């Protein structure tokens, strides 16, 4: 026989179970609808926040341009807070903070950005530049290296090259010429045939002290842009440093008038006043030596007059006597190779004495010393 109270209980349990299932279904449905509504409202709110961020960014940029640095920092912070991880806003904020000399905060902003975009070379580059400003040379090197080793898109290869140029400039400012040269060598292998880029490399080679490579790069650039006056000036200066005065004079004469006037004048004096130059006759050698001796004697005697009674006067007088004796030789056309060499050496001694005692060397002083040095006859 069935138990009526038991079956009632079963039916009651069944009803409760059914009700609970329906209620759970309703709650699940409400949850789904609430999720969709909340997501839509949150998306709307996000839109507002992004619009606000954009507006604050524009305000901050304006303030930055007008020099209101504190205002700019405030506005750009608001932009960055409303759109976290947006690189443009973060970089602008870091720029404003850097301008305000708040390097710690700028660094923090950039490091936060780097967390969201760890492979972005632009952020590493800004960190490198910031480290340079903070005089943190190892930090700068680290970030420059990270920038260079990042994956650059193919179309940004020129930008990557510019970063290497920037790194080389930083190394040169720190007198790390050897490191700079090795970076330049690495760069040199992949330089495009563009005059401006080659000239840039040449200038850096010159700053690193490798004038031979500098001149070679300038000449490569000149083959592409023969009339580029800045490149001509650079080539002229490099040739001058290498002691190739004729070449230097040729380049500098075509360079802009104000590019390196003193270098041009010095090169000119060396080329036209060198008694030991090739392909000139003995009369011309004698004339050039006589001119040099006359100039050095006058320079020394003017100097001696100004420092009468000084201990150096004796030296000057001895040099003057030597010069007078040599001038007599030259007048008597006794211009053999030894006499000319001795004369060049004597002139360099006289010029050194004059500049030691009476101060700054004139262009001609320098030219005469360079002539002596050119032939291994410089007294120093």
């Amino acid at each position: 026989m069935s138990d009526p109270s038991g079956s009632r209980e079963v039916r009651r349990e069944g009803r409760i179970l059914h009700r609970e299932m329906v209620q759970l279904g309703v709650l699940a449905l409400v949850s789904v609808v609430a999720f969709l509504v909340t997501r839509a409202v949150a998306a709307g709110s996000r839109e507002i926040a992004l619009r606000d961020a954009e507006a604050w960014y524009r305000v901050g940029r304006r303030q930055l341009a007008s020099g209101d640095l504190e205002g700019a920092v405030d506005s750009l912070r608001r932009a960055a807070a409303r759109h976290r991880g947006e690189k443009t806003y973060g970089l602008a904020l870091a720029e404003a903070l850097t301008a305000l000399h708040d390097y710690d905060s700028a660094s923090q902003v950039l490091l936060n950005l780097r967390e969201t975009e760890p492979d972005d070379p632009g952020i590493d580059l800004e960190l490198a530049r910031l480290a340079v400003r903070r005089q943190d040379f190892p930090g700068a090197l680290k970030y420059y290296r990270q920038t260079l080793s990042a994956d650059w898109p193919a179309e940004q290869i020129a930008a990557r090259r510019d970063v290497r140029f920037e790194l080389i400039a930083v190394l040169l400012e720190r007198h790390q010429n050897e490191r700079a040269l090795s970076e330049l060598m690495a760069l040199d292998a992949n330089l495009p045939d563009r005059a401006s880029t080659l000239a840039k490399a040449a200038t850096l080679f010159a700053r690193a002290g490798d004038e031979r490579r500098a001149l070679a790069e300038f000449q490569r650039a000149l083959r592409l842009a023969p009339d580029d006056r800045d490149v001509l000036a650079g080539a002229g200066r490099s040739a001058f440093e290498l002691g190739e005065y004729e070449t230097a004079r040729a380049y500098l004469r075509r360079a802009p008038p104000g590019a390196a006037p003193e270098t041009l004048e010095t090169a000119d004096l060396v080329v036209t006043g060198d008694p030991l130059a090739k392909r000139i006759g003995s009369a011309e050698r004698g004339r050039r030596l006589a001119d040099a001796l006359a100039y050095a004697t006058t320079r020394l005697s003017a100097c001696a007059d100004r420092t009468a009674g000084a201990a150096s006067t004796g030296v000057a007088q001895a040099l003057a006597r030597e010069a007078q004796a040599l001038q007599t030789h030259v007048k008597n056309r006794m211009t053999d190779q030894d006499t000319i060499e001795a004369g060049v050496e004597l002139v360099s001694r006289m010029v050194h004495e004059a500049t030691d005692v009476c101060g700054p060397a004139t262009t001609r002083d320098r030219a005469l010393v360079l002539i002596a040095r050119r032939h291994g006859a410089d007294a120093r």
Partner: protein
Amino acid sequence: MSVPASPTQQIRLRENQLFLALTILVGVLAGLAAVLFSVAIDQTTHRLFGLEPSRWRLFAVPPLMSLVTGLLLARVFPDVRGSGVPQTEVAYHMQGGAIPGRVPLGKFVTGVLCIGSGHSMGREGPSVQIGAGLASTIGRWMRLPPERVRDLVPVGAAGALAAAFNTPVAAVLFALEEIIGDLNASLLGSTVVASVAAVIVERSILGNEPLFHVPAYRLVHPAEIGAFAALGVIGGVASLAFCRSLLTLRAAFLRLPPWTRIVQPAMGGLIIGAILLYSPAVKGVGYEYVDLALNGGLALKAMLLLCVLKMAATVVSYSSGNAGGIFAPSLYIGAMAGGAVGMLVHRMAPFPTGDPGAYALVGMGTLFAGIIRAPMTSVFMIFEITQDYQIIVPLMVANTLSFWISERYQPTPVYHALLEQDGVRLRSSGSAPIG
């Protein structure tokens, strides 16, 4: 052979399964409510103040909106003033978990209006009450036994807090430590489930963006522990100052004639308007400025000033009967105090020190430990924010000191003291037991 389950066992099994399903749904709904609450506050603030509010707007919006909320709080939703955490504790401990359905709705509306109109209050406390209220309402609608309805209250609170702060572990601890008052509670599993469900929902809507961006922390010199200990002491004293001034001013407001209750929020709004005229940075929740303090974006003087102003503004907003919590303000004040201490240490210490941002972070924990008196929650909350184990040691040192000072000189925790002002005495009015 397996023995068939008895009808009692079957019912209990079904109840457990139902409770598990409800725990997940309550977690989801509480999380959604917390997200919606947060978004609604942001939108209200945007609409009321715009991008660059004029001085007139800064001054007028808080009192004018408080007239509306004052009316709502006095006539329609009388039980949703203040934070919501003490009310949730009362509901759990003294009312069998019964929270009327109008409470979550009222808390949502008035909380959005109060915090959105610039009152210096937090959204986490109200979220807790909204989540708990939803859970209680759902439990009663499901016709659960009274003890099960009660059990759902901390579950809803944990879900809402987890979503509001994106810290699931801290939310669970908060529910156990503060709402239940027992870290050994049997509801650990349910609160964890709800917290996880809420955080999943929250992250799927807002993304897994941390609430604050914090600098990497590093203990630069062992002596820095001493500096963090000093910060703990300062945090404890600041917590005491905050709690005492809050209770004193609130008592003064409560002594005013009953008919003034309708305008008391507006009176507070008037003072807030005046403060906003001087410093708009104390407006609302203020996490933007906490982020700044954490990342070294504020000068020493600014942080000291904001610390004092935020404390004053929160005391006024809360005491005058507006709807909003003290969770976020305690973090704000802590960040400013900690950041200021960090800067001073950075400048004056004879040893190398870490970033002031790390001090701001620990400062947040110390004020939370001192004001809210939930030390485990405070440690895990900061740990969850930073996800950096190295911060734990200085954080524990500073939080313990702050907690100890606060407990020593203010034996009744602030939430319980607020209830006592309302004539309610919880069975245990001491600090939450640890462990």
